[in-house]
């Protein structure tokens, strides 16, 4: 069955007189009184499905975000963890047990063929986590059953048990104390799904529909998805939290950034994803558009493999840091859309150490340091660069060329190397390169989510610590900080770790990119998330 909705449509009346009266009334009220507010978001691609736990791409997370809630969530526009479906929680003194008190009266959405008979409760929380953690769960293998984020965030090992105490109380037991766990639970993969809906579909023999026609508790309910074309949502009038200010949310799937920009100018959409850096200057001049920006929660770095000579010597790594003209890279490659990185975490992340100073650009001192380390010129090294553009690095090849030229000035001959993207990461993690460019985008706004990349556990062959740097002073603080719950104590440790890292220089921190968002002037109330991604709750059209 199809339904018709036209903006500003006036209901047909039975007779001409009534019709005329209705028309006059509508005119008196003003057209806006009967207009539905629709926000069209020109998104960049099609979602794989609507279950975040199964996905790894921002495109799919964006598509599911209006529909779901998690136990805890990131406050809009920040990385602060706030209550959501869990109203409150308490942690046991040993940090191993977290008891969540669930919010009462939270309604599930209805979709064609399913009408919920009960509110959200502990069974739904159990279902959502059991599907990802128990291989024998009836839904574990549905839709491919790859729960990458659950595994990557260490939840498989960390989550010892999840027990329902009563309908509105859940006890989560961890295998070890872990401070970032709450931030993990605010991530998309931890979205809470309806167990009742899952059961109903299983009984009707259509469990795959669970991931295609989503049912959530979020501010918007799912209406339809026409493959590769459009996703439609409607404001959830029964939403437990801050109600949506628009009536309809439409994702118009528009993969080409030039087309997105054109559609925005023509008011065919009011918000466009990922503008092209080259278009930004023109967008900023356009009076009908609004461009906002924020430093991204990311880092681009040049890692030195400390297990390979001469990079096992701290002085050589420091020399590399001094040899590169970082300001030139910012100017010529980032074109103003980035800030030079001093620390391994961006300045927007809590515990950022402002006292740490970056290495100066000083080729003479770099040369002296190399000499002191007993390196004879010319030094032959390989310098790997990514074959693809990344959110934190617009052009790794150009940066590599600029580095190559800077290094030549201090007697270092860098051979540029690259591979297909998957192969590149695999080889880098195996520790094959001597020096290698890569980067990271934060998942949950916890410093641990960055620093674990230089921890000893990740320095094993195949691990994500591609500088293979294992520093006892750093690592002991990393481990300790993960077990503490007091943010002040954690901050102190992370600050110390940043100083250790700068001094020992396993990398040259290159940049944190700036993320831009573009929308029509009429769009109000949009808050950029430091974690990337898009959320339209609180957004209005004036």
């Amino acid at each position, binding site marked *: *069955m*199809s*339904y*018709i*909705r*036209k*903006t500003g449509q006036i209901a047909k009346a039975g007779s001409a007189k009534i019709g005329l009266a209705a028309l006059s009334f509508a005119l008196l009220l003003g057209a806006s009184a009967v207009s539905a507010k*629709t926000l*069209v978001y020109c998104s960049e*691609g*099609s979602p*794989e*499905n609507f279950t975040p736990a199964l996905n*790894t791409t921002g495109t799919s997370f964006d598509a599911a975000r209006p529909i779901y809630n998690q136990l805890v969530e990131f406050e809009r526009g920040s990385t602060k963890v706030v209550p959501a479906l869990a109203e409150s929680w308490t942690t046991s003194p040993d940090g191993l047990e977290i008891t969540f008190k669930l919010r009462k009266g939270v309604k599930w959405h209805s979709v064609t063929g399913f009408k919920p008979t009960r509110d959200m409760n502990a069974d739904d929380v159990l279902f959502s986590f059991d599907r990802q953690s128990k291989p024998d769960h009836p839904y574990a293998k549905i*839709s*491919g059953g*790859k729960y*990458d984020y659950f*595994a*990557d965030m260490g939840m498989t090992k960390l989550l010892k048990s999840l027990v329902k105490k009563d309908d509105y109380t859940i006890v989560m037991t961890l295998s070890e104390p872990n401070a970032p766990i709450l931030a993990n639970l605010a991530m998309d993969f931890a979205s809470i799904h309806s167990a009742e809906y899952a059961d109903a579909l299983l009984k009707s023999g259509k469990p*795959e529909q669970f*991931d295609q026609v989503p049912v959530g508790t979020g501010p918007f309910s799912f209406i*339809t998805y*026409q*493959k*590769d*074309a*459009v996703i*439609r949502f409607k404001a959830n009038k029964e939403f437990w939290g801050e109600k949506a200010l628009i009536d309809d949310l*439409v994702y*118009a*799937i*528009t*993969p*080409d950034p*030039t*087309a997105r920009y*054109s*559609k925005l*100018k*023509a008011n*065919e959409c009011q918000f466009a994803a990922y503008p092209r850096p080259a278009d930004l200057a023109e967008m900023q001049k356009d009076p009908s558009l609004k461009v906002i920006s924020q430093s991204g929660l990311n880092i681009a770095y040049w890692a030195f493999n400390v297990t390979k000579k001469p990079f096992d010597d701290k002085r050589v790594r420091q020399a590399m840091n001094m040899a590169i003209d970082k300001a030139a890279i910012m100017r010529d490659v980032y074109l103003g859309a980035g800030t030079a990185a001093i620390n391994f975490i961006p300045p927007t992340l809590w515990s950022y150490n402002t006292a740490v100073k970056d290495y100066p650009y000083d080729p003479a001192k770099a040369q002296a340091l190399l000499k002191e380390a007993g390196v004879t010129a010319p030094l032959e090294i390989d310098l790997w660069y990514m074959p693809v553009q*990344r959110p934190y690095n617009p052009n790794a090849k150009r940066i590599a060329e600029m580095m190559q030229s800077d290094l030549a000035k201090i007697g270092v001959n860098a051979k540029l190397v690259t*591979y*297909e*993207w*998957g*192969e590149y*990461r*695999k080889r880098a*993690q195996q520790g094959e390169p001597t020096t290698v460019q*890569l*980067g*990271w*985008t934060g998942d949950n706004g916890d410093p641990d989510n960055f620093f674990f990349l230089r921890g000893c556990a990740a320095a094993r062959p*195949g691990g*994500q610590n591609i500088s293979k740097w294992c520093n006892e002073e750093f690592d002991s603080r990393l481990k300790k900080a993960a077990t503490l719950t007091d943010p002040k104590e954690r901050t102190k440790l992370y600050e110390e770790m940043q100083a250790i890292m700068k001094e020992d220089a396993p990398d040259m921190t290159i940049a944190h990119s700036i993320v831009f968002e573009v929308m029509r002037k009429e769009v109000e109330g949009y808050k950029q998330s430091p974690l990337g991604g898009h959320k339209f709750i609180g957004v209005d059209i004036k």
Partner: protein
Amino acid sequence: MLRFLLKRLALTIPTFVALMFVTFVAIRMVPGDPVEVRTGERGISPERLAQFRHEMGLDQPVWKQFVDYAWGLLHGDFGTSVVTNERVLTEFLQLFPATLELAFFGMVFAILIGIPAGVIAALKRGSIFDQTLMGLSLTGFSMPIFWWGLLLIMLVSERLGWTPVSGRIDLIKFYFEPVTGFMLIDSLLSDQAGAFKSALHHLMLPMIVLGTVPLATLARMTRSSMLEVLSEDYVRTAYAKGLSPFRVIGLHALRNALIPVVTIIGLQVGSLMAGAVLTETIFSWPGVGKWLIESIGRRDYPALQGGILLISSIVIVVNLTVDMLYGFINPRIRHGQ
């Protein structure tokens, strides 16, 4: 005629097998696999990688994967997308009407303008019209579709505001569930005032962009074929008999001149499909072309293999039909003369 048909049909079988093989091998020669593409900077543990590769059958020798794939195809199974977990055939059938609608109107546009233009150019050989048309058709023929599409969007949609930028219908004003998948038909079925007009409006620019290359080819082909026919004895005889120029050209000359043009139309289906990949991307047209592009990026082997094979099958069938039609129009071909 039956022998001719059987011979033609038999010839399509090796083409189909070769196509299946080339598609299968070519995709596997592209570095990276569907599991690694998913992981990004966070990487994947060797155990999980091995598990997923096993589940997808990627740990089998390539020849075994090919045999399994061919066996599935023989049973009408095009496989399941490793990204969406939907049947490849289901996904294809969901998206194909959009491509067909675009390709059909692209071709109608090319025929309606290309053939008359070619005829007029041939009749006015050497005139300014002829020279302009040939110049334009050469430009059209060598125009990069991507550039042409973006140029038209900037000029017609942005500057002049005559057509929408992209998509298939005004998403704010109209909403109805697809019935046939053809937006023009569905918009009529929806009973929503203005929906059909909006769908037509959205079709204009992509149709022109996709139809440009076939239009240029058809205009040139019609012109040269027409020139050849006009110098034939029977045309001179027809004029000598006192037939009106309209009858000579319309009945005698054009009918014969169109024989090679029909073949060209058949061959253009292949380029239409190739053009659709780009046109759909520029105009956010939710068809199989855009789907294939995304499948390459995601290394979705089953979707790519199935999609290319299905599109190629359509091209093969259309060409076969054209061959039949050609044989029907020109009996000399049919009888192998």
